[in-house]
């Protein structure tokens, strides 16, 4: 064991002496690995960011909530045109689910549009206006920072009240308490009942805080026809009952929409699960393609290492001859050159990570992420593997050199 350690130490010493002796060459060769590791780790970091953004957003959907819509979140097996021409999901279906469902804990119809919102002299353009039932908090999992959400009576009665997102609140009421104030949404007056907690953005795209929530019946009077397409959120009593709830809701909807037994469903019941599956498929493909393409640069770096190791072996033929003459077995020579190329690549990997880390912090500013520790370790491991793999052929050739020929080499 001690013997192996000494040989390893000797190999390490030789490797670093050789790298030091050819500084320029080592730097240029390592550059290939550095670029490879930088691109692979950054790709890993970006994918991590994508996953994080998705998981954060998807959590907001709630695992125990069903979303009744015309459109399915999963694969569209049906013709786009057929789905487009489905009848809209209407408020009647929400009422029916509420009336007949045993499994549903809360049912909440939702629709939305964009309008400008004004308070006094202050204007916020293109705010997402959500028309909703009274059970938004229950079904969406959002929370109110202060004030109260509107009651079922206010919702059904179509009272001109609203709840505002934190961003809207910050823009319209920088120095005031918004509760009880009157704002104008698309020209109509509403009284602010509450302000939501900060929620971030959905998939890093749309801010969830730049929103105003109004009773759906009011929404129908002022912004959109009550015949327009809705989304119905149905919260199950528990996650375990989600499948039962789904079946029950499906039956209620078929009846509500007057479908005959042999008709296909003309609606979709979506859930978080569907989106996760879809994302995993897409995300997996993105990750695979991204890592493959960036991996190519690492591969090219590996070829550079192999090339330079061949040069190194040829240059040091005589040294190999000397070492063999005084009793170095093949294994030792093989190990020596493998360690040299592994050391080159490992240095490249470490430099690569040192370069990639600050860049990942820059990425973090627009796509919240962090270079995962696993990516760091994998990158280092991969660079060692690249070194060993690309160093193997040259090292093998060195170990097989005939000592007589090697000693004679000029």
């Amino acid at each position, binding site marked *: 064991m001690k013997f192996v350690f000494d040989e390893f130490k000797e190999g390490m010493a030789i490797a670093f002496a050789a790298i030091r002796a050819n500084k320029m060459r080592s730097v240029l060769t390592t550059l290939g690995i550095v670029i490879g590791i930088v691109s692979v780790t950054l790709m890993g970091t970006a994918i991590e960011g994508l996953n994080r953004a998705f998981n954060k957003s998807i959590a907001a959907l709630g695992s125990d909530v069903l979303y009744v819509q015309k459109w399915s979140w999963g694969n569209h097996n049906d013709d786009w045109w057929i789905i487009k021409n489905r009848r809209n999901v209407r408020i009647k279906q929400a009422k029916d689910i509420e009336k007949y469902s045993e499994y549903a804990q809360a049912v909440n119809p939702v629709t939305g549009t964009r309008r400008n919102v004004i308070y006094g002299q202050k204007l916020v353009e293109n705010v997402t206006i959500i028309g909703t039932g009274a059970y938004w908090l229950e079904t969406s999992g959002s929370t109110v920072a202060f004030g109260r959400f509107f009651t079922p009576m206010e919702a059904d009665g179509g009272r001109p009240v609203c709840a505002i997102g934190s961003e809207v609140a910050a823009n319209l009421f920088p120095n005031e308490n918004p509760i009880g104030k009157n704002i104008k949404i698309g020209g109509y007056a509403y009284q602010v009942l509450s302000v939501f907690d900060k929620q971030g953005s959905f998939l890093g795209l749309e801010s969830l805080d730049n929103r105003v929530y109004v009773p759906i019946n009011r929404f129908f009077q002022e912004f959109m026809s009550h015949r327009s397409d809705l989304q119905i959120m149905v919260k199950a009593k528990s996650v375990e009952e989600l499948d039962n709830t789904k079946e029950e809701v499906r039956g209620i909807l078929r009846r509500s929409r007057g479908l005959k037994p042999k008709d296909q469903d003309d609606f979709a019941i979506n859930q978080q699960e569907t989106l996760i599956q879809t994302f995993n498929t897409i995300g997996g493909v993105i990750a695979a393609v991204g890592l493959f393409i960036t991996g190519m640069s690492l591969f090219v770096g590996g070829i550079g290492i192999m090339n330079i190791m061949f040069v190194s072996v040829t240059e040091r033929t005589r040294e190999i001859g000397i070492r063999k*003459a*005084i*009793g170095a077995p093949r294994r030792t020579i093989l190990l020596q050159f493998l360690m040299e190329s592994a050391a080159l690549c490992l240095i490249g990997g470490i430099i690569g990570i040192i370069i990639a880390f600050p860049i990942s912090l820059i990425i973090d500013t627009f796509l919240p992420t962090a270079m995962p520790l696993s990516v760091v370790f994998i990158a280092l491991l991969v660079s060692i593997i690249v070194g060993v793999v690309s160093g193997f052929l040259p090292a093998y050739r060195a170990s097989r050199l005939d000592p007589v020929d090697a000693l004679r080499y000029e």
Partner: protein
Amino acid sequence: MSSIIQLTSITKFYQVGEEKVHALDGVSIQIQKNEYVAIMGPSGSGKSTLMNIIGCLDTPTSGLYELNDTSVSDMNDNQLAKIRNKEIGFVFQTFNLLARSDVLHNVELPLIYGGIGSMERKKLARAAIERVGLTDRIHHKPNELSGGQRQRVSIARALVTQPSILLADEPTGNLDTKTGDEIMMLFDTLHKEGNTIILVTHEEDIALHAHRRIRLRDGKMEVDEPIKNRKILTRPTTVMA
């Protein structure tokens, strides 16, 4: 007493294109412990091939080579490497030191491959370096040493494993006469201390240091005789550094 080296009908062929070249053609030699043998011959006589075979750097095409009663003629590369490490000390014409390593490391190297622990290794290496009178140069690199000093480093490296034979290939070939004489005096002393020395040379003058002369021609043994008028250098061997 059995021989240290027992070569029986050694042949070595090289295939050069269509032609078979007989580098060695049925050579038989016995060398006893503590002999001092000079192998001579013009270039192309096969003396380098013979040296490579004796040094276990190469294996014969046919014939039997026994070193310390062990047959080495059909050993594989790794076994030969072990034999070279333990039994043979090489001294080359071109010194063949590792340019980037200091004297100590160069001398230590065979012990590293021999699996000797660090403490023991340093001790043996220092002793060998002292033996050739280079203790004050122990941390110098080869390019900071003169030719004679380099050759002494390579002798120290050859001695450090206490091998059965010292195999010197034109050890004075790259040195001036005075330095060459100093090196030969060192060999003479090492012989007196009980080492077995095989000297490959084409210089009659150098060969005269040995006790026995083997002359090759065209791959065959031409002469194998004791040397009568040995050259004895009278200067004291201690002033070598």
